[in-house]
Structure formats: C-alpha cells, structure tokens
C-alpha cells in the first residue's frame, strides 16, 4: 500500500536524520488525535478485516466513508498549521470531494482496471459493482464526476502488487512524509511548532 510506504519511508528518513544530527525525535502535538481513531475504526473494520467487512452491506459503505472522512476533515482543520497538514488536508479533501460527488464511493474506470490487470478481458469488470472489499466502485467515465480526482494512476509495471491511486493519495503521501520528517527538526523549530 503506497500510503503506508510513505509513512514507513518518512519514519525511516527522520530516524536517520535524527541519528546523523544527534537529535532526539520530538513529539509534535496534534489536537484531537483521539478523533482519528474513532473515525478510522469503522473503516478498518469495513475494509481491512475481510471476515467482518463481507458481512457489511454495500449500501452502508458510503455512510461509513463519508462520516469517517468528515471527522478527519475536522481533525485536519484543527491541525492545519502543523507540519505536513496542508498537503495532508489537501489530499484528504481531494479524496473526500470525489467520493462525496460519486455517492460515497471512490470511482475507478474499466480502463484503469484493464491497465492494472492486462491479462483480464475488459468485460471481466462489471460497471456498477464494487471492486473487491475496497473503497472503489467500478464506474463508466460518463457517469463519473470529477474523474481526474479518482483512482486513475498506476505504479510502474513489474511491481509485485497492482495499485491504482488518486491525486489525493499522492498528496497524502507527501504530507505524511513531511509530518514525520518534522519529528527530527532542530529544537528551536520544534518549539515554534508546538
């Protein structure tokens, strides 16, 4: 998953910087951090625990997505001036807007799926159906609102897992990296942030 890769990379880089500059990683205080756990928990259950997620009707997924992301928008606004949050907030808003505009689902086109899985025929994908247990709904381009914000980018061919991601995901990755990078800032800079 590209987002967790960005978190891992940001953490690794900031630890190396802390080591090289003899600094201690400093905690950046985030307001209302408990809100993240409350908001994301339903998503974890619905999207990342297959045994439970399968039991959740697809009709409920849009409600889970939108309410959960709304909470994260509030969290982002409360921390807008913390490092990385301009990019994190922009990425969140980008995904939130396109999901909200498409009935609570992240759209993905048959064209993108065909590029992701070239060995599968185009008619394998059924428009209007959910893509596995993901947040994505397969949609026709004509019915997709704000398609340029949808999952339309692919990782280079040859990697072990096929992933389609959005502009919002790119911004989130940049923001997560910047936020974690800020943990190893100079003491003076840290004091200015907190």
């Amino acid at each position, binding site marked *: 998953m590209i987002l967790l890769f960005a978190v891992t990379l940001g953490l690794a880089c900031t630890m190396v910087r802390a080591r090289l500059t003899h600094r201690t990683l400093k905690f950046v205080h985030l307001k209302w951090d408990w809100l993240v756990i409350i908001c994301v928990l339903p998503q974890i259950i619905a999207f990342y625990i297959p045994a439970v997620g399968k039991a959740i009707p697809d009709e409920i997924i849009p409600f889970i997505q939108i309410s959960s992301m709304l909470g994260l928008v509030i969290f982002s606004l409360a921390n807008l001036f913390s490092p990385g949050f301009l990019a994190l907030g922009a990425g969140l808003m980008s995904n939130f807007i396109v999901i909200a505009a498409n009935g609570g689902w992240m759209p993905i086109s048959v064209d993108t799926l065909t590029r992701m899985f070239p060995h599968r025929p185009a008619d394998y994908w059924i428009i209007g159906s959910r893509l596995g247990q*993901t947040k994505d709904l397969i949609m026709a381009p004509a019915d997709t609102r704000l398609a340029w914000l949808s999952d339309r980018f692919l990782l280079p061919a040859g990697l072990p897992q096929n*992933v389609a991601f959005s502009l919002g995901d790119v911004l989130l990755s940049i923001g*997560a990296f910047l936020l974690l990078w800020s943990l190893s800032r100079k003491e003076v800079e840290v004091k200015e942030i907190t």
Partner: protein
Amino acid sequence: MSSKLLKFARPVDVRVVLFVISVALFVIGAGAPAATGG
C-alpha cells in the same frame, strides 16, 4: 524489529510511537488506493 528502530533513534518517547500510529491511521482513513490481488 521495532525496538531496534527505537534504539536506533535514541531516546524516543512513547508518544512518538502513538503519534506515528495516528499518522498511519489518518492516511489509511483519508486515502483510497485500490489494491487487489487481481
């Protein structure tokens, strides 16, 4: 593995670990990449 990483960064606060978990949860909740086994 994680304890080695923490040692590598020297005195790391538990709050930093919780902070990283919060960041990871945030990007999981805000992101929407589509990854399937095909």
